[in-house]
Each structure stands twice: as C-alpha cells, then as structure tokens.
C-alpha cells in the first residue's frame, strides 16, 4: 500500500500540561500546536525533560491536558471518560514502549493477539493475523516463545507487531530503540519503515537517538514544552 492522499490523523491545538515534581510545578507542555498526517514517519526529538513523552502520553489518551485539545481523525478527546479514552486507545492507537512491555505469561503470538482479542476479533482470524504479523516482523519461528525466552530486539519486534496488527490510525512509539544496541535498533527502524511504506501505517516516535532522527521523514523538535522548528 503506498501513500496516497494524506489526511490529518492527529490535530493538536494549544496543548498545555503542568505537573508537580518534588513539590515544584513543571510546565511540560506550553501551548503545542501540531498536525500529524496519515502515512507519516515522524519523530519528536528533544532532550530529557523537554516534554516529548508527556506530549506522546496526551496524544495517546494516557494523560489529560490542562488546556487544549487532541483530535484523532476528527474525534475530540476533550471531556471523554476513562472508558471512552480506553476505547480510543484500543481501536485507534498502537503503542510501542521503550521497555517492550509484553505480557510475560503470554507467548509472542498470544501477545500479538491480545489487542484483537479485546476488540472481539474471532479466534481463527485473530490467530491467522497474529501469525502473519509475526512473519512480517521475522519472528514466525518464535511465535510460541514467551517474552523471557526472546532477546530485547525480538521482544521489541513482537511489540511492533502487537501495535500494528489491528490496523490503528497511528502508532505512538516512546523511545523504541533506547534499550537496544545500535545494530538491533537500526534493524527495528528498517522494519518499521517497511511497515510504514508497505501498509501506510503512521508512526510517531519520541526520541533523542540520532539514528531515529536521521531516519524520520519529519522531525519535530521540542524544547521546554514548546515546538521549535
């Protein structure tokens, strides 16, 4: 699948977020405006504490802004209940975490199936899609291994498979290569780039890894809670 007409997947309007850290007020986001279009392969880059993870959390409906709004494919996230946010996370967003965060008691294929299971996909279809996805990320032979039996790179590949198997509108990846060596990280980025190219999956990373920044088609720099172009 190529990249045809690009549509806005995420619109961010005047996003503000303040939180308390060690008794001090930290302004993590100070009026962010940003649009992410379908098929993008973008990275939010900035030093530690610049607000990139907070921005990703708010975009993913894990955190709520103090001010402003996040609109996913025309659906505002403002004023949504926890359960409605949970539904958006389930059906529209894929997550890749820095520490892989696979469910340790489930095998690779069961981890990939998990989101589809929550979506109510029928068992046979679920298993078929999960195995196909594992094949795409090069882990078909490891499908019945549990996370503890996989290397860090393999676990992150399973996490990628889990994030995109149900066809989310956007995949948010929080420093996906931070725990991987350069070679494995590079190979993972190649994989995601391929998936972006072939499936048109929209990827948005938060990173301070120069390798990720180099591969990103669009680099969004953030400093002290503000986007700096």
């Amino acid at each position, binding site marked *: 699948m190529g990249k045809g007409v690009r549509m806005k997947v995420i619109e961010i309007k005047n996003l503000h977020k303040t939180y308390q850290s060690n008794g001090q007020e930290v302004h993590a986001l100070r009026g962010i405006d940003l649009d992410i279009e379908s098929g993008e392969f973008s990275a939010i880059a900035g030093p530690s504490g610049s607000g990139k993870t907070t921005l990703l*959390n708010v975009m*993913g409906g*894990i*955190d709520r802004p103090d001010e402003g709004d996040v609109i996913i494919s025309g659906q505002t996230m403002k004023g949504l209940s*926890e*359960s409605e946010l*949970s*539904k958006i*996370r*389930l*059906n529209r967003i894929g*997550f890749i*975490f820095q520490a892989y*965060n696979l*469910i*340790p*008691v*489930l095998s690779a294929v*069961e981890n990939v*199936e*998990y*989101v589809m*299971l*929550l*979506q109510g996909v029928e068992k046979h279809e679920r298993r078929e899609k999960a195995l196909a996805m594992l094949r795409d990320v090069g882990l078909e032979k490891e499908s019945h291994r549990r996370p503890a039996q996989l290397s860090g790179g393999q676990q992150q590949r399973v996490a990628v498979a*889990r994030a995109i198997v149900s066809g989310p509108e956007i995949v948010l990846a929080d420093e996906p290569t931070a725990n991987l060596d350069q070679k494995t990280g590079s190979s993972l980025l190649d994989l995601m780039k391929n998936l972006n190219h072939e499936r048109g999956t929209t990827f948005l990373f938060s990173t301070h890894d120069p390798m990720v920044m180099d591969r990103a088609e669009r680099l969004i720099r953030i400093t002290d809670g503000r986007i700096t172009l």
Partner: protein
Amino acid sequence: MKMIFLLSWRNVWRNRRRSLVVITSIGLGILMMFFMMGISKGMNYQMVDNTISTSLGHVSVHRKGFLDNIKPSYSFVPDEDFMERMKSSKGFSWAPRVKVQAMIRSSESSRGVMIAGIDPERERTVSGIYEYTSKENGSDFLKSSEARDILISKRTAEKLDLVVGDRLVLILQDVHGEMTGEALTVKGIFSSPVGDFDKHVVFTGLKNLQRITGIGSRISEITIKAENRDLSYRIKKRVEPWLKSTDVVVKTWQEMAPSIVSAIRLYDSMMYVFFAIVFTTIVFSVANTMVMAIMERFHEIGVMKCLGTKPLNIFIMILIESLNLGLLGMAAGMIAGGLVLGVLTVTGLDLSFFSETMSILGSGTVIYPVVTVKDFFASMVIVSCTAVIAALYPAVKAARIRPLKALHFI
C-alpha cells in the same frame, strides 16, 4: 473471556512457591474442616444412635405426662385396633415396655434405678440391649417375659458387688401406691456406650414387671424403631391417626430428648465458629497474596490498560486468579481429607483415653467420621466465596490502576 482465564491461570504459576504456600494453607484449612466436621458429625450421630438404641427408640407411644412421671399409674392399655395396625404395619419394628422407678439392693449396697419390663423377643428388634449383654461367664439375655430374672449393667454390678446368678431385691411402688419388693436373679450383665444409661437402667421381663407392679396387661409405652432416625416424624405422622385415646401421645426422639437436639445444635454452632476462624485466616492469606501479586504486576496491569483493557476485565482476571488458588487449595484439601476420612471410616478414631467423657456423651470411644455429599458441596461454595471475597479488594485496586502512574512504576 478465554484469554482472561488463560492469563489468570498462568499468573497463578508466576510465583510458584508463593502460590503453593497459599494452596497448601487452603488445603490444610479444608482438611481440618472436613476432619472436625466428620468427627463432630460422627460423634453426634453415634450419640443419637446410642441413645435411641438404649432407651428412646425413634418414636414412642405413651400416656401424656409419662416422661415426667415414670410410674405404674401412667400405664395404658392400647386398644385392639391400634395393636392390629401395629402388627400388620411394615417399615418399622416395635416393642412394648413397662417402665417404673425403683430401688435395687444387694447385701452390699443399694441404688435407685429405672426398671424396664421388656418382651425379650420384640426388644431385640428395637434396641441394642441384646447386643450390649455379655454372653460370657454365664451372662445371657432374658429368655422369658415371666421369669424372675434381671439384667443389670457392669457398672451397677460392680457398685452392688453382684455377679451372674446372685440375687438382689427390687423395691418399687405398685399401681396402688403401695411399696412392694421382689427378689430377682441376675441373669446377665450388659455394658452400653451410654454411661448414664448403665448407671440408672435395669431390665426384667415385661410380664414379670406387670405382675410385680400389679398393672395387669397395661404397658408404659410402645417403642418404635424406624429404618433410620430421619424417618421419626414420618412414622409419627403415620401412627398418630391410629390412636383413639386422646390421652395417649406419639413422640419422636427429638421431642423426647430436646437436650440432645440442643447439644447437636451447640456442636454445629461451635463448628461454624471454628470454620469462620479458619476461613477468615484464608481470606487474609489469599488477599495478602493477591495484593502482593498486584503490586508486582502494577506496571504490567498499567500496560494492559494502556492497550485498552477494560477495568472490568482486570477485575475479573484478579477474581479468577484468586478463585484458581481457592479451587486448587480445595482440591488438595478434598483429596487429603478424603484419604484421611476414608481411612478413619474403616478404622474409626479411637478416643478411649477420653473414655469417661465419651461415656457421658454416650457416643462410644471409637468415633467413625461422617461427611455427607452436602458437606462437600457446602465447602465448595464456602471456599469459592472465600476466594472471591479475598480477591475483592485487590481486584478493585487493580481495576483502578491508572495507566500513566503504572507506566512510571518500575
């Protein structure tokens, strides 16, 4: 839902040692529960059965007020129609008795007793006195209803220094209120599991006692033995309409010995208190384990919520995990309990070192445990409820985990 079950099951085995400790503690609780319940119920059953087989019978037909006034004047003549029905009835056995308060005296001592006049043949079908009578050293059961023989307990024989073949004097009040006496020969010595019975009851032939008391063909009661003790009310309902005299009543063993019924209730209540203590311990043990398990998986549960898992699914997952622990513990306890009780059902639990106490209770010194299918089902329900109750707090806590907080929790 299948995945939730799968997750719950696998989570049980994440910390194998901890889960095994909890399963073992639940298993031991169940084993103790079955053991205590089995022995307690067995003791109650034996106490009731022994009391029924020595004195009460399952049902008794007698004059109103007889139980409070065991005197010849409270005797009655059952009408012919009633007796005909009794003779032709099936499903129970019966025997007539005359009961009178009396005194027996030997050359050494004397003792106040209740003497029962029995029909030796019929009595064998309603009571255990024949089995309790020694057939050794010349001792034997009564052979005739008319003979001037007497059966006394081993305890009474020792107290009065009597042996088989000795004579004692029976002194009682006849139907006219006059004191009368008779010399009787000790025909046999009996020993029952009920200490109080042995201390206060002696037997002679029915016609012999009718003659001594001067009551003619009157009797004090008709004792009925049903196929089992639970049929007593049914037998009462069957027999009652056959009576024409309103002065004669039918009483079940429960009505005649309310103190036994109260004692059983007291035992049961004590068991419930014991079970409550055991299961409270289990609740806290399981709850503690589940809280620890959730704290360990705080981050993971947060990730699951991030991925879109509903709080209800997390709640159910924790409940099922706890239920798995409970059911495994219950299976272990039931297997162990089944084995222990299975062996004890054959060998019995010998409590002869408490023989004095057991004699007072009337249960015998060897207790055979009794556990019913109902008890098994009750314990299944109790353990399941306990496991679910124990998991409620941890499950609510897990369901309320905020993904953002959990993601930052290492």
